Structures are given as C-alpha cells and as structure tokens.
C-alpha cells in the first residue's frame, strides 16, 4: 500500500469511492456511532452528494445513505479508490 495516498474522507468529491483506514475521533460516543453505521476500517464508502449549501455530504455505506458534516468526515482517514485501480 502506498502511504502517501492517505487522505481525509472530507477531501473526496461526489462520485468518488473511498476505503476507510482509520477513525481519528476522540469523542467515544461519536466514534462508536460512526462504527455502528458502517464507517469501519476496511469498508468502502461511496461519496454521493453534497447538500445544496455545501455541507453535510451524503455517503453510501453498507447499502444505506448516511449524511455526515465536515466536522466528522474530516476525521475519517483512508484512500480514494480510482476506477481501474482496484
């Protein structure tokens, strides 16, 4: 794995896919909630679209749609998946 590719989920644009590597969140309850919703290291997330005002963003994870604010997606690290790169 190429280390340099690690980025924040919040940097991904709609239409892209993202594989989660790490949740860097101190708030235990929030971290747990994100894990419960499927934001689990190793899982794949599809970036669906941004709210009309730019934030929050909707993600497809485990076949469900979950919206996160930038405050949360900033702390989810992983790599962007480019098609043909799988």
């Amino acid at each position: 794995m190429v280390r340099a590719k690690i980025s924040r989920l919040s940097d991904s644009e709609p239409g892209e896919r993202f594989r989660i590597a790490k949740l860097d969140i101190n708030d235990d309850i929030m971290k747990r909630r994100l894990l419960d919703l499927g934001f689990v290291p190793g899982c794949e997330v599809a970036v669906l679209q941004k709210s009309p005002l730019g934030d929050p963003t909707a993600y497809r994870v485990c076949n469900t749609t979950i919206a996160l604010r930038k405050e949360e997606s900033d702390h989810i690290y992983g790599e962007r998946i480019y098609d043909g790169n799988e």
Partner: protein
Amino acid sequence: MAMNEYTIALAGNPNTGKSTLFNVLTGLRQHTGNWPGKTVVHAEGFFTYNNNRYRMIDLPGTYSLYSNSADEEVARDFIIFEKPDITIVVLDATALERNLNLALQVLEMTSNVIVCVNLMDEAKKKGIRIDTKKLAATLGVPVIPISARNKEGIDTLLKTIDSMVLGKIKTNPITVRYSPEIEQCIEKLIPRVKEVIGDAYPARWVALRLLDGDMSLLRAFQQQPLPSVKEVSIYACHGPAKSI
C-alpha cells in the same frame, strides 16, 4: 384454562418498519409512556395467540446496543435485565448488512431470538434476493421473511412465537469470533466474570463489554439486583460455536 403471559421485546434499526409490525400485531391495544427516569418513549402493546397472552415492548429503534445513547441503554438494559421470553429483531431486507450487526449483538445477549426480515416486497422490487433458510441456519435462530405493511408473513411469525414459548424450538445462536488477541482476553475474563456476577448474565457478553470499557453497563449493574443463583443462564455460549 388460564392464559400464560409472555413478554416479547421488539428490537431493530430505525426505518425498518418496526413500528409497522408492532401496530400490525397489537392493533389498538397499546399504550405509550416514558421509560422510568428517561426521556425515551416506552411503547407496549398486547395480543393473544393460541391461548397465550403476549406483552410486546417496542424498544427504541437503534443501530447498535453499545453507543451509550439513552435509547440504546434502554434497549440493552431491557434485553439483559428484564430477560424477555422472546426478542424479535426486525431487519431491513434492503440493507441487511448493517442491520445484521444489531441482530448479532442481540444474539450475544440471548438465545431466544426470532429474526424478522422485513420489507421483503421492497427488496424484491429492487432485485435483492435473500435466502432466509440459509440465513436461519447460519444465525442459528428462526428467520421469518415478512412484509409488515402488506401483512405478509405474520401468520408464520405468530406460529414461530407460539412454538418458541412452548419450547418446541431449539436455537443455537452463532458466536461472533473476534481477533485472537481479544478471544484470549475473553477466555481469561470469563471465569472471573462468573465469579463476580454469577451465572445470571451471559458471561462472554459481559467479558466483551468489560474489554470495551463500557462504563454505562457498570452503572447499570450497580443499580440492578442480581437474580438468585438458582436461575440458570439462558445463554448458550458454550454450545458448539459456528464460525464463518
């Protein structure tokens, strides 16, 4: 003949049609209030089937039982401390993967579980097929495909409930296998857990929560009286564990 009364807890993710099922089963025989000391809605309803009376508790819709929100604590405490005769876990057929997490968590706590895969009609429309027989074999508990809003599968569900309270169904819930490191810790902790809190609670589950550092459970245990020792654990964690 006197009717027996059994308690059924209804658990599930939000947006799975859990309340629809609750309404279908209990009709207008329901009332709502608050869980004692909590601002969480407590809904219970009643129905009778085959000469038995059932009290059904609609637990708050939650994604998990461990996030320590008020909702989840209520659901967790009810399953672990009130020991309902049956816990029905309602799953959304169109998002089975995430929904199964809750089912697996419940199966770690009790073996008297019926899994309802709801919104089968919706899944069919979306071209999602679920092999519920295979799912039942894997989970080790009955799995009933239903469509609560079309009232499909309700008969089968009621029959399964009836068989389960009469002890005609033997369940053998799946055990989630954790990393070797964690499994080792669990193994070390289980005898200690039994020593401290006895047989009344599923030791493997308690050990896991301890490893998880679940402070709210500690508080809950302090508030709860322990049932007398003669009660045998209903948890089947030492049965042949399935692994996948």
